[in-house]
């Protein structure tokens, strides 16, 4: 069964609502896969806090744990759920009102 876009969007936006989780995602996006220890070294939070956030991000499908020894588990960013969120934002950002106003102005100018 295909997952509901609404459920995916809710998880993505809930995940992005927290500044530490945004920082973790940004670190994985810019630097590639990393362990909880690596991330704690780069961010102003404890390893325990990073691990807790990574668990939530994995639950939402935004990161994936790569198989490995417990403390060496590396987390990798998964972009597919973000694309659902991007589509949601694209619908909100598609400004037909301004475009149609411009069409009206164009036609009136040419009359």
């Amino acid at each position, binding site marked *: 069964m*295909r*997952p509901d*876009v*609404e459920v*995916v*969007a809710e998880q993505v936006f809930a995940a992005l609502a927290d500044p530490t989780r945004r920082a973790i995602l940004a670190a994985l996006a810019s630097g590639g896969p990393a362990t909880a220890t690596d991330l704690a070294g780069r961010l102003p939070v404890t390893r325990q806090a990073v691990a807790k956030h990574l668990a939530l991000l994995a639950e939402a*499908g935004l990161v*994936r744990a790569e198989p490995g020894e417990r403390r060496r588990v590396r987390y*990798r960013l*998964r*972009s*597919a*759920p973000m*694309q*659902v969120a*991007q*589509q*949601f*934002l*694209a*619908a*909100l*950002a*598609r400004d*037909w*009102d301004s*475009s*149609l106003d*411009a*069409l*009206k*102005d*164009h*036609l*009136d100018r*040419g*009359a």
Partner: protein
Amino acid sequence: MSFPDRIERTVELAHPPAKVWAALTTAEGLAAWFGDQAAIDLRPGGAARMSWNHGFTVQMRVERVEEPTVFGYTWQISGLPEEDPRRTYVEFTLEPAGAGTRLTVVESGFAQLPDDLHGKAYEGNAGGWASELGELASYLDAA
């Protein structure tokens, strides 16, 4: 459902359908109100393109041409990578209204899911960069 799949607007224009049609379906018309530059091959399956002076370009594909009542095209979803295959469908419907035109625009398809959202295809994609960089490394090593 709060995730909008479809956007719909109707406007009353004080100009006859033929004139509105020209504004929607010619490069000159599109460049005058929609993009800053435009090109269009007006037939189903034809390519069209609009670009803006701030640097954004969108590729379109003409889908329906029923002069002067229905013009439809698909285009990329803004914000998604250019190679993403998903498109939204935009359809303009023109109806005579007195001396003018009632124009309806419907854009649909925002709630499509990526096919690879939870599938195996995605796992392949996620590994894409790592394997491409691996290939680059082997290529350089061999050289």
